[in-house]
């Protein structure tokens, strides 16, 4: 069966520090991968998605970037964190090419920028 991992589970970082969040998927090949952010009391916002190694699409301009160095690894990064980057970050995967491409979510990383 497929599983999706995210780490760290929680992170407290000072403003201006770098960020690296990691997401890995097991039990599937060639997945579509997604990064979402959920701000407190708000819905989910799609940040990035990837259909393959090295292929990243950005949905909103921001202080973050994403990379996919391996088929089942998706990394969210920042060179300098802002206060507004605080939130709950969720990674998701879906089977590429399936008719309705259900997305399955990881456990999330809670980021607090102080």
């Amino acid at each position: 069966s497929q599983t999706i991992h995210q780490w760290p589970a929680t992170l407290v970082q000072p403003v201006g520090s770098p960020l690296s969040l990691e997401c890995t998927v097991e039990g599937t090949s060639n997945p579509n991968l997604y990064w979402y952010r959920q701000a407190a009391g708000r819905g989910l916002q799609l940040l990035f998605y990837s259909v393959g190694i090295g292929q990243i699409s950005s949905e909103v301009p921001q202080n973050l970037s994403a990379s996919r160095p391996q088929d089942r690894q998706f990394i969210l990064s920042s060179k300098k964190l802002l206060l507004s980057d605080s939130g709950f970050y969720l990674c998701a995967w879906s089977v590429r090419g399936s008719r309705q491409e259900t997305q399955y979510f990881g456990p999330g990383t809670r980021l607090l920028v102080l």
Partner: protein
Amino acid sequence: AQSVTQLDSHVSVSEGTPVLLRCNYSSSYSPSLFWYVQHPNKGLQLLLKYTSAATLVKGINGFEAEFKKSETSFHLTKPSAHMSDAAEYFCVVSEKAAGNKLTFGGGTRVLVKP
């Protein structure tokens, strides 16, 4: 363009009584519709999905939803609430014309009283 409206931001029910979470959608084409549940500080778990097969969809944990095209609705119900159902629920729409990207409703927070 697709959109989702969850009509209640908060719902409070007593344990053992029915739960109704309302969702209306807007979509240009035949959509896929999903309900996800999120417990505090956890990722999103798929409850059920509609993909143009049977209009009454049964999901996990006793939940079900009915797709009504004439009313553009996809309400989620459960006959008898359990304390473990206390969580936030998201109605989500996806359509192929939008690249299978998910559009989330604002969420409904469910409180279950003993």
